[in-house]
């Protein structure tokens, strides 16, 4: 009966309740859409970014990321490999042996990054073959190199030409290699496009006199949300001679940028909820004022103030819940639409994105958590606001209240 009472009381002033509910609904709609879009956009960007090269996380010998030299490479260890591959949430791993080298052809010389890879592992992790402009993918048991277009251009090299690589081996002696170019790669990122070359990892090991060694073990994830858990478990379980770094630690500037952007968004949402809070509060105040006499009468009859307060509380919950549920019902199709039909940008933004080889599209993400969070926020706002009317009801004086 108390719930029935609360429910009917909401509809006592139908227009006021409907206005309050629609304000709440639009706030929830706006918040859910904004958060979904923001998370979707960044998620999309991160996915693009990490699948370009770094992966979501990497395992190195301790100190490698600070000082990227062969001395900081590690011996490939089946046990470690299995441990990383077997970590819950990890869906792909790839060993790499990286070294800076001088690439030359005729009288032209360029610094470059040579990456020894296991072609099939790398394919699973970064879809390398999709970046091939001409030629074909490496085979692990065959000599050959995949060279980024920019680098090839600077060296005046074409498909099928021979690439000469020169560097210092693991033991410090000079290491030279000649290898045919099997394919040309296109990278959106100028950094990568102007300096990267891939060769099979076993050839790299032979060339660098680093048999059985790698500089990094790249980790791919089934779901990006699992990154914190995977990172935690890797950091805890790997031998002390290893380090496990997430993309956030490897590319802190990008992470900071995302966090600053999120902070901005949450401030905006905070302001939005503040406005809504004022709306809800004024409704509660009006309701309280016009029902003084009724509350006094109920208390006189023998209803404990706490029971009356529960009715008021239930009314607040109904009001905010109806509003936020309506908001959810409206926001689901909107978010779904934005996920299926991402916003597409043109102009400067599109150009910046294109430079990195990304499409300037902004898909929303559909996550139950976003919907639930926003509903909870509104509900909590409502409950906090209800403290005042509840407090007033609890110190109600029947005679005084009935004189109103």
């Amino acid at each position, binding site marked *: 009966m108390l719930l029935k009472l609360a429910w009917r009381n909401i509809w006592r002033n139908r227009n006021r309740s409907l206005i309050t509910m629609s304000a709440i609904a639009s706030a929830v709609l706006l918040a859910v859409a904004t958060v979904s879009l923001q998370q979707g956009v960044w998620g999309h960007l991160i996915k693009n970014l990490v699948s370009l090269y770094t992966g979501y996380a990497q395992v190195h010998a301790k100190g490698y990321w600070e000082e990227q030299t062969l001395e900081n490479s590690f011996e490939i260890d089946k046990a470690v490999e299995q441990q990383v591959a077997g970590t819950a949430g990890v869906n792909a791993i790839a060993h790499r042996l990286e070294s800076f080298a001088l690439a030359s052809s005729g009288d032209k010389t360029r610094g470059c990054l040579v990456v020894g890879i296991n072609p099939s592992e790398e394919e699973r992790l970064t879809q390398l073959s999709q970046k091939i402009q001409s030629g074909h993918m490496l085979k692990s048991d065959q000599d050959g190199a995949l060279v980024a277009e920019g680098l090839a251009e600077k060296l005046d090299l074409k498909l099928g030409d021979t690439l000469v690589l020169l560097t210092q081996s693991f033991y410090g002696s000079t290491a030279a290699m000649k290898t045919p170019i099997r394919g040309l790669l296109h990278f959106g990122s100028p950094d990568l496009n102007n300096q990267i070359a891939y060769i099979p990892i076993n050839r790299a090991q032979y060339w660098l006199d680093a048999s059985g060694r790698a500089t990094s073990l790249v980790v791919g994830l089934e779901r990006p949300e699992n990154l914190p858990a995977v990172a935690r478990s890797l950091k805890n379980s790997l031998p002390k001679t290893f380090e496990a770094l997430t993309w956030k630690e490897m590319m802190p500037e990008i992470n900071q940028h995302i966090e600053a952007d999120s902070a901005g968004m949450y401030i905006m949402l905070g302001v939005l909820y503040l406005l809504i809070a004022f709306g809800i509060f004024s409704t509660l105040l009006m309701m309280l004022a016009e029902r003084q006499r*009724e509350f006094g009468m109920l208390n006189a*009859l*023998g209803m404990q103030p706490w029971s009356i307060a529960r009715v008021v509380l239930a009314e607040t919950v109904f009001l905010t819940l109806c509003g936020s549920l309506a908001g959810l019902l409206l926001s689901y199709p909107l978010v779904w639409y934005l996920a299926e039909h991402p916003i597409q940008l043109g102009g400067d933004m599109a150009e910046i994105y294109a430079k990195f080889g990304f499409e300037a599209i902004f898909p929303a993400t559909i996550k139950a958590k976003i919907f639930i969070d926003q509903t909870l926020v509104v509900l909590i706002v409502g409950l906090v606001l209800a403290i005042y009317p509840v407090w007033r009801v609890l110190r109600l004086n*029947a005679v005084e209240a009935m004189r109103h």
Partner: protein
Amino acid sequence: MQTVIDAHNISKVYNPDTIPVHAVNNVHLHLNRGEFTALVGPSGSGKTTLLNIIGGLDAPSEGQVVINGVDISNLKPNQLIDFRLHNIGFVFQAFNLIPVLTASENVEFIMLLQKKPKAERNKRVQELLASVGLSDKLDARPNQLSGGQQQRVAVARALASRPQFILADEPTANLDSHSAATLLDIMEKMNREEDVTFLFSTHDQRVIDRARRVITLVDGRIESDSAETQIKH
């Protein structure tokens, strides 16, 4: 004769520190079971104040109210609320009913607070609304009822809790004379049939004429009490 209300030496002073108003002065009041008593006096004579004190809604500045042997000034606030729920029925001058509940729900509500079982509640709601002549208005909301009908629902509700007595503060003040007479008929019938004690205030002569005992208040003092006059005569 069983004593229901025993009020001793009741005084009430409002604003004792600024401009003191002596609303009730040294009143003694004794009510037995089954009485049908009117508290009469001009506006401002202290009727509402006295009824509120007897009903445990307001504390006297001095004196003691004993109801059915319980000194209600000794009760803690929440005990007092519970005591009202189980012992006292209230009918106010206006705004008696919960606007969003129907007539039958309004009557049922008080029994719900008393945690009476559903079957008993339903039966009593039907009975009471029938005896106040509102069997056809069970599902009407207060705003669909006339003032007189609303007061009859309030009387039914006051009876529903099976109280020791019913306090009614000017229950007919907002009613036309026909509705007032009907309400008094119902109150009298209930007083007879259910043996409920009524104490009601009024300044309407037609209502006063219906009372079996009349207590007259002037300036917060009891000026006359027909019970005492009868004994004297």
